[in-house]
C-alpha cells in the first residue's frame, strides 16, 4: 500500500513537471514579448534590454525554465529584488508577488467551492434518492424534468438573473462581497449565498440524475433481492444494500468536480465580483499578465492531479473489489 501511494505521488510530480513545461512554453514563448509589455508606453530599447536581463529573457530557453522551476522551490533573484520561495514571479500589472496574490485569494475560492459542494451534494443526492424511491410518480417526473432544465441553464445567466431579482429588485440580499466569517457571520452567509446557489445548481441537477439512476440500478441487483429475502429491516436494507453500492461511484465523480472547482470558479466569481482565484484568472487573461496566468494554470493542474490521486485512494478504501489483498 505504501509503495503504491509513493508510486502515485511520483507520478503526480512527473505530471506537474510536464504541465509546468507546457504552460511555460505556451505563455512565455508564444505570447507577446514580456519585456515590451512591462516597459509600457515610455519605452526605450535600453530599458527593454535591461528588463530582459533582469527577467533572464536573454538566457537559453532551458535555463529560463530551470530558473522558473528552482524559483518555486528555492526562490530566485530578479536583479536586486529577491523573491523568496515559493516564487512564481511578479505580476506584470501590479508588480505584486504572484504567490501572495494567490494566498490572498485562495480562501475566497475555497469558501465558494466548499459551500457550493455542500449544497449540491445535499440537494442532488437527496433529490435523486427520493426520485428513485418514488420512481414514476409525479414527484419523480417533475424533479427529473427540473434537473434536465437546471443542467441546461448556463450559470452566468442564472447569476445575472438572481442578482437582478434578489439584489436589485427585491433587495433581500446584499451585493456579494468577500466578508470574512469572523467579522460578521450573518453578512458572510448572505453574501456567499448567491455564488453558492449559482455554482451548485448545475452540479445538483447532474448529481440528482446520477443518484437516481444508480439507486434504481441497485434496487434491481440480485443482492438487494437477497437482502429483502433475509427479512432485514427497511432501514438496514436501504443503508447497506441500496445506498452504499449506489453512492460509492458518486464519491469518485464528486472528488474530481470539487478539485476542479478549487482552481477557481471563473465565471461565478467574475459575475459576483468576488476576489477569488477565478476572478484573478479572468483579469490576468484579459491583461495578458503572464506570470499570473501561468500560476493559476499550475494551481488548477495541481488540484486536479492531487484530486485524482485522493479519489483513487478513496475508492480502494470504499470498494473492497479494488482493494489490495494483503498477503
Amino acid at each position, binding site marked *: *500500500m505504501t509503495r*503504491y501511494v509513493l508510486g502515485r505521488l511520483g507520478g503526480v510530480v512527473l505530471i506537474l513537471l510536464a504541465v509546468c513545461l507546457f504552460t511555460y512554453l505556451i505563455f512565455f514563448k508564444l505570447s507577446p514579448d514580456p519585456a515590451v509589455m512591462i516597459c509600457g508606453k515610455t519605452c526605450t530599447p535600453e530599458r527593454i534590454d535591461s528588463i530582459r536581463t533582469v527577467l533572464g529573457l536573454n538566457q537559453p530557453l532551458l535555463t529560463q525554465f530551470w530558473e522558473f522551476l528552482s524559483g518555486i522551490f528555492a526562490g530566485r533573484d530578479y536583479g536586486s529584488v529577491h523573491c523568496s520561495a515559493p516564487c512564481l514571479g511578479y505580476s506584470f500589472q501590479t508588480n505584486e508577488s504572484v504567490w501572495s496574490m494567490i494566498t490572498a485569494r485562495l480562501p475566497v475560492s475555497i469558501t465558494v467551492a466548499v459551500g457550493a459542494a455542500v449544497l449540491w451534494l445535499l440537494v442532488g443526492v437527496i433529490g435523486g434518492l427520493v426520485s428513485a424511491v418514488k420512481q414514476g410518480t409525479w414527484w419523480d417526473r417533475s424533479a427529473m424534468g427540473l434537473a434536465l432544465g437546471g443542467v441546461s441553464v448556463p450559470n452566468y445567466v442564472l447569476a445575472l438573473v438572481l442578482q437582478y431579482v434578489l439584489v436589485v429588485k427585491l433587495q433581500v440580499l446584499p451585493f456579494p462581497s468577500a466578508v470574512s466569517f469572523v467579522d460578521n457571520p450573518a453578512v458572510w452567509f448572505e453574501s456567499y449565498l448567491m455564488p453558492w446557489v449559482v455554482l451548485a445548481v448545475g452540479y445538483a441537477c447532474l448529481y440528482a440524475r446520477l443518484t437516481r439512476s444508480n439507486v434504481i440500478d441497485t434496487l434491481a441487483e440480485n443482492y438487494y433481492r437477497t437482502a429483502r429475502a433475509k427479512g432485514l429491516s427497511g432501514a438496514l436494507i436501504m443503508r447497506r444494500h441500496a445506498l452504499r453500492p449506489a453512492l460509492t461511484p458518486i464519491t469518485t465523480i464528486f472528488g474530481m468536480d470539487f478539485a476542479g472547482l478549487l482552481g477557481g470558479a471563473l465565471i461565478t466569481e467574475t459575475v459576483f465580483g468576488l476576489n477569488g482565484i477565478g476572478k484573478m484568472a479572468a483579469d490576468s487573461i484579459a491583461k495578458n499578465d503572464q506570470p499570473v496566468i501561468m500560476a493559476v494554470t499550475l494551481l488548477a493542474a495541481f488540484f486536479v492531479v492531487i484530486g485524482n490521486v485522493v479519489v*483513487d485512494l478513496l475508492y*480502494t478504501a470504499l470498494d473492497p*473489489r*479494488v*482493494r*489490495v*489483498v494483503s498477503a
Partner: protein
Amino acid sequence: MTLLKVQGVTKEFVTRGDGAMARKSTFTAVDDVSFEVELGETLAIVGESGSGKSTTARIAARLLEPTKGSVVFDGQDVTRASGKELATFRNNVQVVFQDPFSSLNPRYTVERIITAPLTYQGIAPANGRRAFTQELMERVGLNPDHCRRYPAQFSGGQAQRIGIARALAVNPKLVICDEAVSALDVSIQAQVLELLMRLQRESGFSYVFIAHDLAVVRQIAQRVAVMNRGRIVEVGTRDQVFGDPQDSYTKTLLAAVPRINPEWDAKRRQAR
C-alpha cells in the same frame, strides 16, 4: 483426411491480478494442447469453467493468436495467416456462439445476417439473396417467410438456428460450436442437436463442439477431448472416454453428472 491440426498450442494472458495495485502476472489459459479433427467427424472438447476449452476453440477459429504452437488447416499453416489466406480460412471455418441474441446484430434483418458472410467475402449468390436466405432458413427449420424479421422477433431456439444458418452460408468445412446449445431449454436443446447432426449428415463438414454438458457431448460427438486447467487430460473415441475413462479427472467429471434414477427411467421406457 485430417482437416484441422492443432499442435502444441499455448496461450498466455497477462493479467493485472486481484485488486488495483497487484502486479502484472501471466496466466496460462491453454497449455501445450494438440489435437486433430478429421473431415466429417465431430470432436467434442469438454471441461469445466476455466479449463481453457473456449480459448482453445477461439485459437482454432483464429479469433485469438496462440502464444506458442501452430494451427494447420487443410495442410496450410494458418497460425499467422493474414489477408487473402485468412479470408480463405474464414470461408472454411465458421463459429456458432453460446448466446444467440448477443451474437446476432439486433438491427439487421435475418436476410442481412445470414448473407453477411457472403457480403464480406464479396460473393453474390447465383439465385439472389432472398432465395438463398430462404433456402438456408428452410434447411435449418425456420419459416422462410420470416426472412425480413429482426432477431428479437424470434425465440432463443430459433435465434440459434439463425446463427447456424449464417455459419452454413459460406459452405464451411469446419463449424466450431462454442457452447452452442448451453443456453437453451432442454426440449429446444434436443431439437437443435438433432438439427446439427442432420446438417452434418447432409453436408459432410466437421464439428469442433465445445461444451460443459457431458450428456450433450455424448449425443453428438464421435471423439472426445477432456480439458482440465488448460491441458487435455484425455482424448479418445466417445465410447472409450465415456465407457472406460483412464484419467482420474475424467472419472470424477463423469461421476459428478446428475442422472435420472436409472430404475425409474428403465420402467418408463418399458411402459411405452
